[in-house]
């Protein structure tokens, strides 16, 4: 006997039997995911805003971070040592990529940048295949973070997820201070709002660009590293996050860190509620949010006012 047809295809499923706690935990899920997305998108928007470079290889740095976390924590037995070793390594890779590839393209148009950074994706993916193979790897959560907090009688919340949020907040605050309170930050802001004027005032654009690109790569790699224990480490991990990050950057306004934060939170929450309240449209929701924002503000939420 065939199973009765399930009621599907409605735009929204309002759960009468769901308690308030369901919506609160869902909001927590969304915010937690949003923090991680912000960390990745902030690097992308920074590189675009300051340097005018569309870096499609941004997801590759996330991938490199994830694989380094797996590889180094397997060797050292500790995720934090892996992060300490891996972060300078990935920043160095970012620096090298800027010096030897990106720096030749500043005078060229976006299409050529897209072509180059897409090529870099292929090279990084092949490198990943050669170095680590096509297996799926797991990364152990450090013991003192491996517990769970009981939320309801059936659900608990892993401590490590909360830790990710705190790490992201710490980096976001650090980024804020870097950009608003330091000399480097001042030059970054200057470079983002008017590159020619900044150059005319004697700012060394070459060094600035190298630093910004390495910083962006470092942010992506760091996200990949701390996300590795809850994500699995697998081929193609970087591409998935790249697409969402691009959407966030567009929503928030290209070049705006504040916009990236707003965009990441919107996408995080839209993902969490979309998946459960409108499951049939979940894959569309991220783009739906983007379309809606672009109709309202074509330059993005914080576009045109670089922060």
């Amino acid at each position, binding site marked *: 006997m065939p199973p009765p047809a399930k009621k599907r295809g409605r735009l929204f499923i309002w759960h009468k039997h769901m308690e308030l706690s369901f919506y609160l935990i869902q909001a927590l899920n969304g915010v937690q995911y949003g923090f991680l997305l912000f960390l990745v998108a902030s690097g992308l928007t920074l590189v675009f805003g300051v340097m005018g470079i569309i870096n499609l290889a941004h997801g590759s740095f996330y991938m490199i971070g994830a694989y380094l976390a797996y590889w180094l924590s397997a060797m050292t037995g500790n995720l934090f040592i892996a992060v300490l070793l891996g972060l300078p390594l990935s920043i160095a890779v970012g620096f090298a990529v800027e010096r030897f590839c990106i720096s030749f393209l500043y005078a060229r148009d976006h299409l050529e940048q897209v072509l180059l950074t897409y090529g870099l994706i292929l090279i990084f993916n092949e490198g990943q295949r050669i170095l680590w193979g096509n297996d799926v790897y797991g990364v152990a959560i450090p013991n003192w973070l491996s517990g769970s907090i009981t939320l309801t009688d059936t659900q*608990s919340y892993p401590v490590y997820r909360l830790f990710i949020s705190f790490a992201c907040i710490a980096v976001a605050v650090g980024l804020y201070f870097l950009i608003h309170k330091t000399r480097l930050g001042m030059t970054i802001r200057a470079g983002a709002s008017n590159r020619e004027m900044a150059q005319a005032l004697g700012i060394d654009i070459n060094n600035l660009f190298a630093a910004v690109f390495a910083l962006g790569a470092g942010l992506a790699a760091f996200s990949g590293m701390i996300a590795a224990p*809850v994500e699995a480490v697998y081929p193609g991990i970087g591409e998935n996050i790249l697409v969402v990050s691009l959407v966030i950057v567009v929503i928030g306004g290209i070049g705006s860190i504040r916009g990236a934060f707003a965009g990441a939170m919107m996408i995080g929450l839209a993902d969490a509620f979309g998946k459960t309240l409108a499951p049939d449209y979940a894959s569309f929701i991220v783009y739906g949010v983007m379309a809606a924002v672009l109709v309202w503000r074509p330059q993005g939420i914080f576009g045109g006012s670089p922060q």
Partner: protein
Amino acid sequence: MGKSGNSGTSRRRFIAGAAATTGLAAAATALPTRFAIGAKAPIKVGIMLPFTGTYAKLGENITDAMMMRIAAAGDMLGGRPVEYIKLDSEAAPPKAVDNATKLVKGRNVDFVVGPVHSGVAMAMTKVMKKAPKTIMVVPNAGANQLTREACAPNIFRTSFSNWQTSYPIGGELHRRGHKKIVTLTWNYAAGKQMAEAVSEGFANAGGDPSGIENLWIDFPSVSFQPLLTKIAAIKPDAVWVFFSGGGAVKFVKDYAAAIDKKQIPLYGTGFLTEGTTKAQGEAAEGIITTMHWADTLDFPTNKTFMADFETATGRQADVFGVQGYDTGSLLLLAMAAVGGDTGATSDIIKSMENTIVAGPRGGWTMSANHNPIQDIYLRRVENGRNVILGLAHAQLEDPGTGCTL
């Protein structure tokens, strides 16, 4: 986006292959194959599998196991050498028709082995139906339609139908006394077909299918947390899921961190714990799944296969390797039956239909609709291995609804 480009046949291999054959044989390949046998023109086996991206490991293992099987038989099919033509399917359905045409028309292959992805498979059938002399052997893609509505004389499958992998666990869930069940898979064809098969098995065993709630997550999203919150709020007796690869690792870890498995046990299609238990670690313990193979199967053929595969590739054998290995066996048996005559298409098809394969998964036969009739095992993860609890269903045959072969 961002799947990489063509790994393709290496031009070098093609030239080397062409140089190896004599001028006579090279001339003979232009003639119908039936006349070329004496000159030992190679049999062309096109391999259309993903060699980059998320499914790269599946493509690699299928290819290596198949080549290993054929190499062990002297690297000959029916007395003729084999030329492999590899093409990266990229697991991309939009590129499937072009890629399959490249092999079938462009390279004039005798067999197409592939693909992994069901969407690619369905697109390929359009090409295969226009090329009745070329035989397609599907070493993974489980779309039910492939051997149901879309079946064709020249399309065979050595793996499974999605229905086969999941129908038996429906009955098992009922027998274990679960009444309120949540299913969760990616919102794509394979996931839907498997979830439907679970409901069907559950209902046929006497369960009330209204107790089953189907949840979906957009493919290929792996942010499972919102769905886990929903499952915890529904409070079912059991959860059944289908994910594979990276998604399987992540889901199992997320589930263990969010929900007490002793309170709400986790069931799945075998792919959930296939080649992933090492990465899943402690979180995978106790998960019960159904599948047509297990690494703990105690047959000599299985043990030899696993040891040989590891020696040859340095990797652990998995179910995809098994499917590739049996694909190799099927090609060997069929070509031996016709003495290497690739022109004798109807005889090849007949011998493939009557083949009995004794492979690593045990004995299986080809059903009338060209899908394996095979044992489905019930397995539980213990210490990182899929330990066999028993047969979930003996010699299960896909109903083949809508196929008129």
